[in-house]
């Protein structure tokens, strides 16, 4: 029985739309996190003094705000994904579920 349902879902254009939108979004965001993080790691590995430059005449280095910004970025990106998934993607998912209910 389940296989029948799964087959119907696969042919539902809304499912194709859901998978395309969600995967695209999820992979783009993941790529962004990986890029930012590994750039940070690469700078630490190959050119540590870059992050050691001080801001103005003080002792605070640019590494500090950059590190903080990566932490904020993680939080903000999870917020963006959760918001879109809990509204747009879940709405699509519910429509797909409705469709199968009518068809079976």
């Amino acid at each position, binding site marked *: 029985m389940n296989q029948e349902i799964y087959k119907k879902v696969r042919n539902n254009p809304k499912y194709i739309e859901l998978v395309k939108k969600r995967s695209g979004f999820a992979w783009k965001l993941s790529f962004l996190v990986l890029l930012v993080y590994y750039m940070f*790691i690469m700078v630490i590995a190959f050119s540590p003094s870059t992050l050691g430059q001080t801001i103005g005449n003080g002792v605070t*280095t640019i590494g*500090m705000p950059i590190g903080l910004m*990566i932490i904020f970025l993680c939080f903000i990106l999870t917020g963006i994904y959760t918001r879109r998934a809990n509204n747009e993607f879940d709405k699509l*998912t519910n429509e797909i579920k409705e469709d199968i209910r009518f068809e079976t």
Partner: protein
Amino acid sequence: MNIPAISMFLVFVLATLGITYWAAKRTKTAKDFYTAGGGITGFQNGLAIAGDYMSAASFLGISGLVYLKGFDGLIYSIGFLVGWPIILFLIAEQLRNLGKYTFADVASYRLRQAPIRTLAAFGSIATVLLYLIAQMVGSGKLIQVLFGLPYEFAVVLVGVMIIVLVAFGGMLATTWVQIIKAILLLSGASFLAVMIMAKMGYSFETLFQSAVDIKTDVIMSPGRLVSDPISAISLGIALMFGTAGLPHILMRFFTVSNAKEARKSVFYATGFIGYFYILTFIIGFGAIVLVSQNPEYLDIAKGTLLGGNNMAAIHLSHAVGGNMFLGFISAVAFATILAVVSGLTLAGASAISHDLYANVYAKGKGNELTEMKVSKYSTIGLGILAILLGIAFENQNIAFMVGLAFAIAASANFPILFLSMYWKKLTTRGAVIGGTLGLSTAILLVILGPIVWGQIIHGDENAAIFPYKYPALFSVTIAFLGIWFFSITDKSDVAKKEIEAFEDQYVRSQTGIGAD
């Protein structure tokens, strides 16, 4: 004898027993035991995840690292955090949609149950035990310093409390202890940070300037902790993918009712954990300024803080809040240990009862009552093992153990879980051979590496056969390559069926249709 510390400690112990009693009455079925009935909300689970993840090792360890090395501590904090967005984008909801109690449910969804579950259980138990040893030894030493109790007594106390908490209260008691601990830890650390900033006129520049005056400006930029590119990248991989392969963390996603709540859990958890790491950073710098110059807190002979440099946050709490606040932070540190160790024990017991017993040994045909019994006996067994290992490793160098736990999680658990969700052509043969290769490479390279082969066996880091402390770059690569190669060359009929089953699994992972 610190009276406030002992009284708050006792209050926490009693509260934990109260929660266990309350939860035990509500824990009747296997679902209750493994997932707290599946009715935890996203916000509660976010706090519980934070409580599960922010171990005493990260509270005391990272603030101690910042105290010692400054900026380098931030590199670790960020590494521990960046796994979370990836878990949200690629793993959390799929895991919730496909699994029931353990991540092996997902990995073995369309593959052969026995071999995949055995490997996943082995990876889980290895991760759990290593992590457990690190936590037990840490807790014994901490309680010894804080409350003046003998080391063995402390380890036995923690072990017995865990057995009672997990065996009777299951996931429900574990969850609430983790939630309460997260709230206590976040409030305690916030108070510490605010007190530091108040003394610094709420200026980071003043804080950093005062710290630089004491330790010179090396603490303001990346130092020698991560010395070469290979180590830096390898550490990054271990922290990021290790987080996504920790069985006690993955298990938390089954306690919420659906994908929506699973997403919210990660969002809140990321916020709490990120905020917590910012606090540990301030606390570490605060300790440089307020603790490192005060002879009251120093062990002059050893040139460290009293009780070791990991005690930075503890001494700082005394420096800014006196005995009362020291007592509070000590009780929080104990709560932290208890919450993390109980999460670990529960994950280990579930791997034994749900994966090895119910699905491998009884082939899914055993009854639930027996499975529950097995899980309780496993909890008792793991608790006793944790006590024995905790005592055995008292004077050993255990610094490599959390790293090894992350390396195994990243090299065995994560690749199998991830590819089972996303790669159609994964077969049982590929997953078993590749996963085993990843697991054994990680263990082998740690043994041959600078800490075990070098420091522990030969007393010199340079004697190591494998020159890097973090094996993840190599072991994760080997795992993925192994899984890929032994999957695509698998032309058996079983493999064909496993590949065909991917499409249906994918529908379920994307929509939750068929999940309960």
